[in-house]
């Protein structure tokens, strides 16, 4: 038998390769540089890597290829947009991650142990987060462009494993943080098992692991539908878990709350983009012709997710949990974009992912600022009267909330409108109605927070808002500006997205 030497389209893979390289260098630095010098170097390295990757992605925006890396990677307009989004979000969240308040000094040390205190006094930092982040980013970049089952699975794990670890690195309330890591890990592994099993059956159905092949056999209708259906179902479990759709959502509130806020921000924003990117590609290209089988189910799941998310969020007492549930609700909104299964739906989803991701990072960035002597305070009741003590922070946070609620003149509104109209266009009226309804419910709790911040007088154990470090400030301001801009004049971005949002098959 003869071997064909693999042909790799390095131009297309370059962003991922760059990020991976950066990550590896980062590991080296961990090994060889002194503790004191690491933080700054790592930060510069990471930022640099991401920026270069960003530039690279932008440079290859017009190249499309079905067969980069022997057909296991596909690159096209949506891929470009999603990678851009992921990189931009990562960059602004890196600033947050760099704010050392967030991470434990010594992950290995027992909570409350002497060595921990020593490490803290020394001002040590777990600079490992930088390479970890980069690995995750690499995974995320790969996830939406993977075009066969292996790559898809590998990418999934690649983006998940670092996140499992990062979830456990919180500086304060470490028990919770570790618990979050455990839960995230176990459930993540559990769901990826489903994912893999599904993949197996898809392979069984078509005999091929490449998306193109699977798609062919679906179109051709050859093969055993039972395998196909099991495959679709289990694969969906894995994907829906990642995006946090009901009933696969249960991890997200706990992890969002337990993980260091910076990580939560990164995870909430970037993972959603990657996961939905993959979802969009798979459902729009691979499963498109099997729509009859999954579309109704996804509709139901979307409805349940939207309503459940918005509903339970009402009862939350903790900002991060509240945002977690709101993110569940938004996952529901995004699934409507998947159901739409038309060009409008694709562009709308991408726009939504971008807008939502940015706003999320911004919102969590604000959360990191509200602290008391014992660090971050996410208990909502203690946010009371924030508007009086630090109007600017409160106003910006309120603005993000309004964006989540989809009030006009915020990016959220444009997103909602476009995604709903796309879904409506494809005839998913019931989903749109449910979406509108749940936005009404959602408004309820966003407003509750605003009331709390502005119209409630603070208790004696009032929280203080730390003066944001330059880095955090950048995060906040950038995301704020983008959210406003997209609300007032979204036309350029929308047109840009429309230009690129076509899957090639």
């Amino acid at each position, binding site marked *: 038998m003869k071997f064909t030497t693999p042909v790799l389209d390095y131009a297309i893979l370059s962003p991922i390769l760059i990020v991976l390289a950066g990550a590896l260098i980062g590991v080296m630095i961990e090994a060889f540089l002194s503790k004191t010098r690491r933080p700054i170097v790592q930060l510069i390295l990471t930022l640099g890597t991401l920026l270069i990757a960003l530039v690279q992605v932008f440079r290859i925006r017009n190249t499309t290829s079905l067969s980069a890396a022997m057909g296991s990677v596909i690159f096209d307009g949506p891929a470009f947009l999603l990678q851009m989004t992921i990189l931009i979000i990562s960059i602004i969240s890196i600033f947050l991650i760099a704010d050392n308040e967030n991470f434990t000094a010594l992950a290995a040390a027992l909570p409350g142990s002497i060595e921990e205190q020593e490490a803290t006094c020394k001002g040590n930092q777990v600079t490992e987060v930088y390479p970890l982040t980069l690995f995750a980013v690499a995974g995320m970049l790969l996830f939406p462009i993977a075009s066969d089952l292996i790559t898809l699975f590998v990418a999934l794990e690649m983006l998940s494993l670092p996140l499992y670890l990062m979830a456990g690195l919180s500086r304060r309330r470490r028990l919770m943080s570790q618990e979050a890591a455990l839960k995230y890990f176990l459930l993540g592994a559990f769901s990826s098992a489903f994912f893999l099993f599904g993949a197996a059956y898809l392979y069984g159905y078509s005999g091929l692991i490449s998306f193109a092949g699977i798609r062919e056999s679906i179109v051709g209708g050859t093969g055993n539908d039972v395998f196909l259906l099991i495959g679709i179902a289990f694969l969906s479990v894995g994907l829906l878990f990642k995006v946090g759709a009901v009933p696969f959502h249960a991890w997200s509130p706990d992890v969002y709350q337990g993980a260091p806020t910076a990580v939560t921000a990164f995870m909430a924003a970037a993972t959603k983009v990657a996961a939905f990117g993959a979802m969009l590609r798979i459902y729009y290209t691979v499963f498109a012709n099997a729509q009859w089988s999954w579309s109704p189910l996804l509709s139901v799941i979307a409805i349940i997710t939207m309503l459940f998310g918005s509903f339970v969020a009402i009862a939350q007492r903790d900002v991060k949990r509240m945002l977690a549930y709101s993110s569940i609700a938004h996952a529901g909104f995004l699934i409507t974009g998947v159901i739409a299964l038309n060009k409008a739906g694709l562009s709308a989803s991408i726009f939504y992912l971008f807008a939502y991701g940015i706003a999320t990072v911004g919102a969590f960035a604000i959360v990191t600022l509200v602290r008391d002597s014992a660090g971050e305070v996410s208990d909502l009741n203690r946010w009371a009267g924030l508007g009086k003590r630090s109007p600017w922070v409160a106003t910006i946070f309120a603005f993000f909330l309004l964006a989540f*609620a989809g009030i006009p003149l915020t990016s959220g509104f444009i997103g909602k409108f476009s995604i709903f*109209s796309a879904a409506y266009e494809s005839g998913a009226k019931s989903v749109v109605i449910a979406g*509108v309804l749940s936005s*009404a419910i959602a408004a309820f709790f966003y*407003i509750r927070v605003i009331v709390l911040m502005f119209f409630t007088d603070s208790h004696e154990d009032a929280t203080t808002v730390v003066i944001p470090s330059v880095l955090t400030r950048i995060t906040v301001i950038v995301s704020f500006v983008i959210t406003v801009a997209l609300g007032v004049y979204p036309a350029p971005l929308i047109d840009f997205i429309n230009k690129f949002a076509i899957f090639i098959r």
Partner: protein
Amino acid sequence: MTLSLTLLMALPLFGAAVLSALPKTNALLAKQVALGTTLVSAAVTIGIAVQFQRDNIDLQFVESHQWIPSFGINYAVGLDGISLVLILMTAVLAPIVVLAGWNESQSGRWSTKTFYILILVLEMMAIGVFAATDVFLFYVFFEAMLVPVYFLIGGYGTGKRSAAAVKFLLYSLFGGLLMLASIIALYVLSGEQGGHTFDTQALSHLHMSSMTQNLLFLGFFIAFAIKAPLWPFHTWLPDAADAATPGTSVLLLGVLDKVGTFGMIRYCLTLFPNATKTFTPTIIVLAVISIIYGAFLAIGQKDIKRLIAFTSISHFGFITLGIFAMTSQGHSGATLYMFNHGFSTAALFLVAGWMSSRRGSSTIADFGGLQRVTPVMAWSFFFAGMSSLALPGLSSFVSEFLVLVGTFTRYPVAAVIATFGIVLAALYILIPVQRALHGPTTPGNENLSDLTLREKIAITPVIAIILFLGFYPSPLLKVINPAATHVISQLGFSDPAPTQLGGK
């Protein structure tokens, strides 16, 4: 410089920008800036009104720029008689509110300048919502307006202000989202029928099944019925009006709520003619209920602000009745009513506000014999009351009677029931008048101070307008009539001919 609606909207925004640049400490300067801005925009509006060609039924002062082309969304504004009148009202009320509520912001959570920034932003959006000819643009203003009002109530109000603010916001958002669903549907339909668009004119030519049309109509109507507010969607209004500062209440009831009735004319009627015909009977019933119900509840109130709020519910009933009577009298009457109600409510709320701020209570029972202590204030209140009960010779009489006559020619029963409202009106005005102004001066009222010069200056134009339009409403009617008749004829209605004379 040529006058344009964009300029008119830019002015308050500019003022707000200037304000935000000012130091927090200098409250007086902030007030002056706000007053100046509102006065200028009022002047500009009057200029526009002068240039407006009465008997031209096309939209005027039209501007249209692409906003989000890929969705066919334009920044498109224009005026017809109806919107002109409402914008005029808004722009004239604004400086009055600023002047009248000179010290309102003191009780607030935040600085004076923030208060006036919110007021100016609100004014800008109010103008925008009346001027918009692009449904999406309208919706954007319609929803965005809620935010400043929300903060005005919750931040500067009294009593259960935050609860009231939330109630107001949730109610409105709920309605707004229903409307959003309808708008999305319209957008999609327009896409199926030759190109996505939000242009009101274009949308009015869409073909849709009567089922769809009814649903979409409801989506819009409920939103507007909540805004207006129409029974049974009214319960947010008393709380809001009770909590808000007088100035805010004036803007809320005088301007913001008009968006509801305005929307009914501009969107429900023009976009869904058939659905309108389907639902008219139901809506007439709701309107009549609102009239009587609001009046009775007003009679039953112990708090002067809540009382005024309920009188407004009754009045909005009249407006809605006039709109859906589908006669030129009813329609012109309704629009004129919107204008007049703006001023009579303004008068009532401002004076009531001055009374309660002096007395430190808005409970009617706490007042008594004010006519002897503070004659001018008492007179202003009495006058406002008279205009609210539509005394002939005052502006509201003309509009109310037009509405009634217009309704009677098509829906006699409804008109008859509604007319009983005028007796109830006498009750809900005269009862507080007697309790608060007449009788012996009760303890706590002996040395209330009468209106200051500033307050007199603020209330005078209101009274003047009410009186003038009572005797000479033609200037407004001449502007309104063409637009109103146009709307009616669009729907294929024409005034019923006198029954006895075989239309001769």
